[in-house]
């Protein structure tokens, strides 16, 4: 037989606290900034050590595909931000639609990425493949970093999409409301991070010159 203390604290850790959730999400985003940051440091060092090689290697990349992806992600940032506005105004259906649009943008991004990657793999440029192994030193570093960084980025797009999926589900079930929309807000923050990382990846890989 369990007795529970009749006393409870006003500042209980078991209360709903939207601000705490938001703070937690921001702290997590800081870790992501440092995570990708490590790779940006590697990029910066190797580009400064191998400037010609990085330039030569970058010609393999298609500026227009990169630009399209940039535009796609920027639009998706807008749609997810708008979906928060929608739920704040109590418009559940529009919120869901905008989140779905965000997912559509994510799919478009990944499809373009898929074409980019397969083209390079066909050209033997993936680490371990024949052409890659015979590249001049700096160029192989460029491609290693390209696959690693865009790969890690796509991984985060997938995670972000899954979180948005959860937010859609919660909104559809009515558990996300005009007053309680923490998950949607945090899904948005995560998505914007994915956008931010690409904003830096794009000029560094596609616009070397």
């Amino acid at each position, binding site marked *: 037989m*369990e*007795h*529970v*203390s*009749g*006393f*409870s*604290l*006003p*500042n*209980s*850790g*078991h209360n709903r*606290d939207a*601000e*705490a959730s938001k*703070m*937690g999400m921001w*702290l*997590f985003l*800081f*870790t*992501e900034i*440092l*995570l*990708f*940051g*490590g*790779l940006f*440091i*590697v990029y910066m*060092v*190797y580009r400064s*050590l*191998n400037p010609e*090689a990085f330039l030569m290697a970058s010609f393999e990349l298609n500026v227009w595909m990169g630009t399209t992806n940039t535009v796609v992600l920027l639009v998706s940032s807008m749609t997810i931000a708008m979906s928060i506005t929608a739920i704040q105004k109590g418009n559940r259906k529009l919120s869901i639609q905008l989140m779905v649009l965000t997912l559509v943008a994510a799919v478009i991004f990944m499809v373009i990425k898929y074409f980019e990657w397969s083209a390079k793999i066909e050209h033997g440029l993936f*680490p*371990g493949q024949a052409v*890659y*192994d015979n*590249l001049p*030193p*700096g160029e*192989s*570093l460029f491609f*290693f*970093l390209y696959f*690693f960084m865009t790969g890690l980025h796509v991984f985060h797009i997938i995670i972000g999409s899954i979180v948005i999926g959860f937010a859609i589900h919660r909104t559809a079930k009515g558990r996300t409301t005009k007053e309680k929309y923490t998950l949607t807000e945090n899904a948005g923050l995560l998505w914007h991070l994915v956008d931010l990382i690409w904003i830096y990846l794009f000029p560094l890989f596609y616009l070397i010159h």
Partner: protein
Amino acid sequence: MTSKAMSLSYLQGKNGIFSWIFSLDHKRIALLYLYSILTFFIAGATLGVLMRLELLNPGRDIMEAQTYNQVFTMHGVIMIFLFIIPSIPAIFGNFFLPIMLGTDDVSFPRLNLLSWWIYIIGAIMALSTLLWGDGPADTGWTFYAPYSVKTGTNVTMAVLAAFVLGFATILTGLNFIVTIHRLRTPGMTFLKMPLFAWALYATSWIQLLATPIIGITLLMITAERVFGVGLFDPSIGGDPILYQHLFWIYSHPAVYIMALPAFGIISEILPTFANRTIFGYKAIAFSSLAIAFVGYFVWGHHMFTAGMSGTARVIFSVMTFLVAIPTSVKVFNWVATLYKGSINVQPPLLYALAFIFQFMIGGLTGVVLGALAADIHLHDTHFVVGHFHYVMFGGTGFALFGALHYWYPKMWGRMYNKLVANIAFVFLFVGFNMLYFPMLVLGLMGMPRRYYDYLPEFHVPNMISTYGSWILATGLLLMFGNLIAGAWRKREPIGRNYWKTGITLEWQTLSPPPVSNFDRMPVLPKNGPYDYDNKPEIEE
């Protein structure tokens, strides 16, 4: 009238293994960490004893060179990633941070449980490297490229284990930061928080921001091992020193993850056993932040002989001297706290005093290593080994032991045998210094580290050191045995404030605490957490 009769302690209530390993109660999670962390400590200490057996005499004693390399690697990986880094925050931070803040849990209890599970998974991954292939990594816990990329031992699993363990650290740090921001009891401003909370706050920021860097670095090593070519390979234009930069950008702040919580413990123990307010509360609080901040900019002092530019070496050396300043501020303030206090000599105080003595030696030897010219001679010698064991073990380790002895009556509502505790302390103190002081001498004499053999002129200090390890091991057995035996000692119930002079909020609640931490509203002293002049009257 208290609701004591109605308050089940957190140890009672639901029982059975699943109610523990799936518990959302921060106190139970703290004990889960305690038992797992101490188990790994014993494993790591055993490896250390084996190392000392090998080093008892020159030449081969009990193992081959290759095995020795694997033993010291495993010793480092276990001690650093499975023991020291999590220890004080995961055990005592989890148990006492919410209570000291006057709340009933952390901000994200489920994330807290997840952290422990991730920790266990990472630990299993790390230990699994013993079981297959060419055996555990033989690179040293630092996994320097290019050897870490080339060697056939289980480096990939070891670095992935460290990657997983990093997640546990990050999530705990995140949880504590939000808890401190959001859940302090009404009336407790930041400047009325106990110093242990300040220490955990600074530590949590390091955990959060530094760990991702090693995360990504270890992923790069993994990628290099899997794909055959990689980012630190000179033959394709890569630079092994870049690996060292990335590794130490995390691993230096990591030592402050180890040290800052220990400083917090000392700041809690001293006022209680001096029965007076801490000297310089704000200085100690802010010095924690200063150490955390400056500590991000000193990493190059691990790389003075690696081939860095001269300008960089000078900058890192200057920053290293700077970071010693806030630490010494703390030491002065602790000593001043004892001055004209009403000193009550109890086991926790003994550990705190040993901490101050040993951390001083460790810290000062660190400053010696920070001097460029001295480091040329001392880098990668036993001087370094002595230095970091003095700070990590003589410092943080002893602070952990002190915390165990300090909060034991609160956590379990029982008490250990104080005489045995004091005897164990003597063994530990003598054994520790006998084990590690000779290393400082050996380093100055020129004996390199991570060598399983050595010249005959190094024999005597090595023997002394090994004998010291046996005394230390005895002390550990006595100490742990005593603490475990305390569970069965029959005595009258432990009151709320066992030491009588505790003033932080945990000493206002029952021993052991109820599930929701408090059975009545905690009362803050008027002028701050160590306001001994206005200590609230707490009836039992």
